[in-house]
């Protein structure tokens, strides 16, 4: 069922060959505005992001903490729409054929767009994978199976509540990589201990050969390095979004210097990840 030799597969194979873990950087599509977001997106690979998660804005982000809630509402207020999100990916792809882009979000905007139309347009734009928070294995017929059939990876979340009995169901129709949510909670909340993460990654590896990325609660280069020692990739979202937020004026508009400042922070995270196993 897995989509082999996708851009995501190739990227993880390359990271393995380099003997290091990857950095997955998250930003929200259209935050703080379309053009600034595109500049950020284009700059992420150069700053050291190995994969990019691009958030699809939604009014009701039930699994997200305050930072990403605010980010998604800023994007919507600035005119974000699904078509515009796909435009960002298309524009990014014109200059980058290798860095995987994963769209992350909630199901309703995809459902409203129409699943078949969404998959066709996403594939054409250059989207490689999907993470949809409110689609557990029990709802695989909705988007997961059609995505795999369309050649788009569907990346599942495993969590601290995913026990041995449930793990096979979570792994069954997953491709690209597994995203381990290291805490029971929302994005940007507390963080798990290195030991707990190592144990969880080992638990996942017992059931799959897919790469394991770990996210939730990673806020510093050091934290990213700790994860990079035991997992195949570290995912950072809220911390990057908070850095963006710190570069907004009182009206929520981008201040000059936002893009280099955020990319500089991503560079520090990347340095943490790249130095972790030395």
């Amino acid at each position, binding site marked *: 069922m897995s989509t082999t030799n996708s851009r995501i597969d190739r990227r993880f194979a390359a990271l393995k060959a380099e003997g290091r873990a990857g950095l997955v950087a998250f930003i929200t599509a259209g935050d703080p505005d379309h053009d600034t977001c595109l500049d950020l997106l284009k700059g992420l690979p150069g700053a050291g992001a190995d994969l990019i998660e691009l958030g699809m*804005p*939604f*009014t*009701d*982000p*039930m*699994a997200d*903490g*305050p930072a990403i*809630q605010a980010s998604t*509402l800023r994007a*919507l207020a600035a005119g974000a*729409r*699904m078509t515009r999100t796909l435009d960002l990916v298309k524009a990014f792809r014109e200059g980058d054929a290798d860095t995987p882009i994963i769209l992350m979000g*909630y*199901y*309703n*905007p*995809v*459902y*409203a*767009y129409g699943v078949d139309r969404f998959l066709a347009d996403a594939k054409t734009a250059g989207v490689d994978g999907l993470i949809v*928070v*409110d*689609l*557990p*294995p*029990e*709802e695989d017929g909705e988007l997961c199976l059609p995505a795999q059939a369309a050649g788009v990876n569907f990346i*599942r*979340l*495993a*969590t*601290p*509540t*995913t*026990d041995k009995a*449930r793990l096979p169901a*979570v792994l069954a129709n997953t491709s690209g990589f597994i995203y381990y*949510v290291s805490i*029971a*909670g*929302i994005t940007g*909340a507390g963080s798990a201990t290195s030991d707990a993460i190592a144990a969880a990654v080992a638990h996942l590896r017992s059931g799959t050969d897919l790469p394991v990325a770990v996210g939730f609660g990673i806020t510093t280069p050091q934290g990213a390095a700790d994860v990079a020692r035991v997992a195949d990739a570290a995912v950072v979202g809220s911390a990057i979004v908070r850095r963006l937020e710190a570069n907004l004026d009182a009206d929520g508009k981008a201040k000059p210097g936002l893009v280099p400042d955020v990319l500089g922070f991503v560079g520090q995270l990347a340095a943490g990840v790249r130095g972790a196993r030395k």
Partner: protein
Amino acid sequence: MSLNTYRAGPDEHGHFGIYGGRFVAETLMPLILDLEKAYTAAKDDPAFKAEMGYYLNQYVGRPSKLYFAERLTNELGGAKIYLKREELNHTGAHKINNCIGQILLAKRMGKTRIIAETGAGQHGVATATVCALFGLPCTIYMGEVDIARQQPNVFRMKLLGAEVKPVTSGSRTLKDAMNEALRDWVTNVGDTFYIIGTTAGPHPYPALVRDFQSIIGHEVREQMVAMEGRLPDTLVACIGGGSNALGLFYPFLDDADVAMVAVEAAGHGIETGAHAASLTGGRPGVLHGNRTYLLQDEDGQILEGHSISAGLDYPGIGPEHSWLHDVGRVTYVSATDTEALDAFQRLSKVEGIIPALESSHALAEVIRRAPTLPKDHLMVVNLSGRGDKDIFTVARELGVSL
């Protein structure tokens, strides 16, 4: 569509037709599977039923009366109107029926902390009440906007020992309170039980809440047969998420001669866009764990509902209602803020009963419909809550300063 029964749903995946389901984050998935297992076991356990029966009778005060509203009937000059007096329950609304059921389930599952969302505050008060009764700590999420318009219920919850957490995200009403409760649940998976207040959310909640509320319809059935020697002709109830309506309707779904009318909140009028009528003005989507009719824009972003009644101000509706709507078993209509306000005052003056603004929407439909029907037509309206909590809102609308 013709079916042998309208009471078979949901299927094992929690679907009513295409509606319902389990659209939740993976972290919550094992929890709702556990809940389903625990509920399936409890449902058939005589000890659980006996315990529920005890509290519903001794603590809530059930059965609630089915009262013949003679003066209102005479004024309207048509159908014979009966009020199902859910507003006489302890805490003043139907919400407590469900809370008793869920807290007993929480106890069975060994959970030690309760969370809930609330709009008008009736479900929050009912939840805080059962938590006091069973000595469990409880956190209630309530939108800032709702807190401002439902002050008496906020104070009530605090008196009962609950922590009321104001929700400042999004539209700061019921939908955002539900988002925040889900965020709490996903963070506190080990010890926390989420008492959802209506027939919505991920499976098994819609079925579980419906079953706990069905005592309303079961009682009406017995009471009407005892009083009139036959079943009612029409049932009327207001609908936000839909628990009081489904509680009344469900036991009658397979009685083909019983008509059912559910009344959504039309706010300032459907045509203005400022309403909370998901079935009349929305389309199917996925939110809060289930597929159902939602108020949303063309991009799938959720729109804010509007109703004078905080309890109906929700952009969705329970999935079983979406299905009953599509198969045509229940008729869904709407009433505006103004119609509800008129009905609120009319019942107060004519019957000496101050209804909740939510229930006033159902009464508005009764006022429209009853005069067109013959005098032997038996109409039951669910008086789902009392209006004491609403007097400040109503006074403001009427330009009276208290």
